[in-house]
């Protein structure tokens, strides 16, 4: 115990003397949250719209006006030439083309139905989908408006014959009523942050001692594996929790992300999760001999972790085999728990299954890495 106290003192002294480390710890949470939560969003603020209005009637102008009014579309060009519109999309000046064919108004009046064409740049499938849904909503609203005034049925083709008995669907988003994308992202980014601190800093810290030769020196002293590992991991474990605390404060007060569940539950889960994160870092440190290698290996692992975690894309939409792999991914379970507790206010009972799996993974990874470490040294 006494030896551990001396070793811990050394580790904390070294961490706080490392200015880059301290800066990373304090600034990383704020910067990452600000960047990822605002920049990495699926919300489409404004899509660039080119209108090809071949009809040039009051009805077609009405549609264009409503597209412009919502704030989701920015009219960059209005033309009668379809080629010119295609060209604008090719040169990335336009993301959406709205083509209103000749005889649009006349068809509406005569047959109660008329087509409009929406062309989207779908290079980014997800963004195109979101843009399309915005546009469809505007068209649908305009159609029902027209139906009321002109007593027409639907605009745009298929759909039930409207009139008195129309279905009116009102969507309400639970847990995130304004569908604020940041609410969804922030808990995941906090997890990613804790992962980086836990895994990367652990690997770098131990490998640095390897490079300097001080690890060999320690191996010649009576310091045991257990003491060494405890002295390395306890400080980094506490740093992970500090980074999480800072991140949570930023999320709460800068992004107004709700905290509906118990803060204690979040930190309890983080404490368990950190065992896995630190264990992976320790494991990396036994495999490599330079900090550069440690960095590469860790980034590779963390990248796979994050892609398979449901941070950016829901796990449920992955292929079955990938879903199975994701089950073994501690990051996925931690993100799930974070979202459940922060956004839905889930309690221990609701997250019990995820927490149990997470604990099992953490204990497994941690004991594996400790065993591996003992094998290498001495």
């Amino acid at each position, binding site marked *: 115990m006494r030896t551990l106290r001396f070793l811990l003192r050394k580790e904390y002294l070294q961490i706080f*003397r490392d200015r880059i480390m301290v800066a990373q710890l304090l600034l990383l949470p704020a910067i990452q949250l600000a960047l990822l939560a605002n920049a990495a969003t699926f919300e489409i603020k404004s899509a660039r719209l080119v209108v090809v209005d071949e009809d040039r009637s009051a009805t077609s102008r009405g549609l264009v006006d409503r597209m412009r009014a919502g704030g989701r579309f920015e009219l960059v060009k209005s033309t009668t030439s379809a080629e010119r519109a295609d060209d604008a999309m090719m040169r990335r000046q336009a993301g959406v083309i709205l083509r209103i064919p000749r005889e649009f108004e006349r068809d509406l009046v005569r047959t109660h139905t008329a087509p409009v064409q929406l062309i989207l740049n779908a290079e980014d499938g997800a963004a195109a989908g979101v843009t399309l849904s915005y546009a469809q909503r505007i068209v649908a609203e305009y159609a029902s408006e027209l139906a009321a005034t002109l007593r027409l049925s639907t605009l745009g083709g298929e759909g039930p014959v409207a009139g008195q008995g129309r279905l009116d669907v009102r969507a309400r988003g639970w847990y995130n009523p304004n569908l604020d994308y940041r609410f969804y992202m922030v808990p995941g980014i906090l997890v990613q942050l804790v992962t980086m601190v836990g895994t990367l800093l652990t690997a770098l810290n131990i490998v640095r001692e390897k490079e300097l*030769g001080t690890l060999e020196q320690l191996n010649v*002293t*009576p310091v045991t594996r257990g003491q060494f590992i405890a002295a390395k991991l306890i400080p980094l474990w506490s740093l992970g929790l500090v980074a999480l605390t800072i991140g949570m404060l930023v999320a709460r007060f800068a992004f107004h992300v709700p905290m509906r569940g118990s803060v204690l539950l979040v930190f309890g889960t983080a404490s368990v999760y950190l065992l896995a994160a630190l264990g992976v870092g320790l494991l990396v440190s036994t495999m490599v001999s330079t900090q550069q290698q440690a960095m590469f290996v860790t980034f590779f692992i963390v990248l796979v972790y994050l892609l398979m975690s449901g941070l950016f894309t829901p796990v449920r939409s992955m292929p079955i085999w990938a879903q199975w792999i994701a089950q073994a991914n501690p990051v996925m379970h931690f993100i799930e728990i974070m979202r459940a507790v922060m956004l839905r206010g889930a309690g221990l009972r609701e997250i019990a299954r995820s927490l149990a799996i997470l604990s099992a993974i953490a204990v497994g990874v941690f004991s594996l890495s400790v065993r591996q470490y003992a094998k290498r040294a001495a």
Partner: protein
Amino acid sequence: MTVSPDHGHAIEVRGLTRRFGTFTAVDAITFDVAAGEVFGFLGANGAGKTTAIRMLIGLLAPSAGSARVAGFDVSTEAEQVKRNIGYMSQRFSLYEDLTVRENITLYGGIYGLSDGAIAERMASLVERLDLGRDLDTRVKSIPLGWKQKLAFSVAVLHDPKVVFLDEPTGGVDPITRRQFWELIYATAEQGTTVFVTTHYMDEAEYCDRVSIMVDGRIAALGTPAELKARFGGETIDDVFVRLARPGAAA
């Protein structure tokens, strides 16, 4: 400090061997080092010195043979060996981002010295090395020569029975080397056995006995005077060249 009573030798090596695959780095070496002796362990690069030392300090398991250090078997009692030895590697091994005081405290603590003992040894060390003003300076900003003297003093802080020095004076000027050897003698006088590897042949002359390793074997062992007489050289340097590169000397 006395060596454990049932053994007259601080180090006993019997047929110690280490193979890496098909390559035999250390080939059945056998020798003894007496308690309180300053033992020079010489050899060209790649002769197997570092591998031998790593086995003696418990960092590497022997493939065959045995060795006892401070009375303990390096294969089966590595932890007791570690408690009774000090080690200073060719790579500078103090923490550069900690102060002199913090380094001394850390290693004192690791070897289980009480707070009182740490304070007392720190005081005597400061006096001996004239470190008073630099006690709270981070190690990275003190000159290399002092760093090495400090590293040595920290390696013997816990009064080990044997101290292993692996090329301790690499890259320092002759005056500092001379001062370093004064520290070594002072330590040996207090009964600590000193096991030192070096590339400087003048340093070999300071040793009580030297061994010269060639291709994993001990090619010669004796006092510097004996070796010079037996191999017919003016200096240990001559002996070394003759043994390590027989073609060149012939």
